[in-house]
């Protein structure tokens, strides 16, 4: 009896986490380079049910197994590409294909697909937060003049090559906020860099709404199960045991 109540409660908790993740995806529906997350569920370990003898208290036989509820096992980052949006701004860069730009933050190298770059007051190519964007030979100086970026990531200022952007492939990228990712580098991605474009968020409103509906209805259904358990318990306590 109570076992079912706790299973149902774990269901409520799981759907809540799912909704939290969906809300975050939806809030970032227009964040450049954002990658949506999804939650994977797992059932708790199954419990063995055994029939016990009333008189001796010894087990009489095996009844089978029963799952004990659900929990969020893992959040996965869906790294499928977002749409490329034309901005015409020469310092907006997008990656066509897999790969990440590398930026140097105070806590080490981080990776991003958000290529809305700019030039700092001292002439260095930086991201929206002011972290230097790394090229093959460290930060890139783009002092004055017209900036062009070739598909292989080579930056030219007034036709003069000033550096080549690092675009790396990541194993298990994890989002950490500020449009940044951490992960294990797997070498050069070999993807093309396109100038004057930004990669949009890969959140699809339709998909998120369907997931939201599903999570909401599942929550509703599990809430009903909790209520049913409550009613059964009420019967047991108030009616069956009436003296």
């Amino acid at each position, binding site marked *: 009896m109570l076992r079912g109540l706790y299973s149902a409660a774990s269901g*409520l908790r799981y*759907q*809540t*986490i799912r*909704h*939290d*993740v*969906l*809300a*975050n995806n*939806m*809030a*970032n*529906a*227009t*964040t*450049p380079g*954002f990658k949506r*997350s999804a*939650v994977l569920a797992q059932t708790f370990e199954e419990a063995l049910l055994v029939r016990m003898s009333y008189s001796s208290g010894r087990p009489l036989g095996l009844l089978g197994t029963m799952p004990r509820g659900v*929990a*969020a*096992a*893992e*959040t996965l980052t869906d790294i499928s590409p977002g749409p490329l949006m034309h*901005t*015409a*701004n020469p310092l907006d860069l997008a990656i066509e294909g897999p790969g990440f730009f590398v930026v140097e933050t105070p806590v080490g190298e981080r990776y991003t697909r*958000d290529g*809305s770059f*700019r*030039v*700092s*007051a*001292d*002439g260095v190519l930086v991201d*929206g*937060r002011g972290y230097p964007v790394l090229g093959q030979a460290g930060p890139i100086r783009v*002092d*004055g003049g017209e900036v062009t970026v070739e598909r292989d990531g080579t930056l030219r200022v007034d036709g003069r090559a000033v550096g080549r952007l690092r675009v790396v492939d990541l194993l*298990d990228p*994890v*989002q*950490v*906020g*500020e*449009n940044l990712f951490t992960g294990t580098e797997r070498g050069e991605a070999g993807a093309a860099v396109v100038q004057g474009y930004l990669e949009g968020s890969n959140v699809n*409103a339709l998909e*998120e*709404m369907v997931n*939201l509906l599903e*999570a*909401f209805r599942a*929550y*509703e259904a599990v*809430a009903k199960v*909790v*209520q049913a358990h*409550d009613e059964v318990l009420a019967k047991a306590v108030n009616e069956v045991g009436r003296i």
Partner: protein
Amino acid sequence: MLRSLWSAAAGMYAQQLRVDTIANNLANINTPGYKRVRTEFQDLLYQQLAGDAAGVTVEVGNGVRLSATNRIFIQGNLLETGNPLDLALEGDGFFVVNLPQGGRAFTRDGSFKLSSDGRLVTSEGYEVVMDGSGRMPEGTVEISVAADGTVSALVGGSDQPREVGTLRLATFPNPAGLAAIGHNLYRETRASGEARYGASARVVQGYLEAANVELVGEMVALIMAQRAYELNSRSVKAADEMLALANNLRR
């Protein structure tokens, strides 16, 4: 539960700021020298709800925030006006203006006028900085401005124009870092870097630089902002209903 409410609220707030910015861009579509502003968003920190040594984690984000408004200094179209005191800049650079309270400001709006003492001023009457005297002699009938910014005045009765000065032009390492102070003027900041004088821009007389706002682009952004706002409101509603269900578990 409450986390999703806050994430959605953050999403709605961010989209609201975006609509504000788009509205300002659209309102300035006919402002000479206006440069459009773009809002930039970033996701917020992720919280780890569970995790193990193998790196399998349950992470939940906290929504979104407006990280910056970025002014896009792309060249605007040049509109012919025929007015000899309308100047447009082609290429990077700014006209330099003396503020009445002291200090310098910078502008791309070249709809200049003549002051009573024969100086080139902005619509607000702020003096445009020139190297040289910069004062049109009395009896000037024609003012001409060369591509390099040299201003000459032709005095009635003479057939040789007289050079009165050269418009001072400035560039910045990071123009997007300039602070807009209204009246189409910008002020130097630490983010923009120090002004460098002597820009490569061409001065075009009889033209004004139109705002670089693109109507279609702004309308598409407006649609996206509105729909994203709506999307987030759905998630607020769902969170609210889920809370109501939880509260009504015990009847």
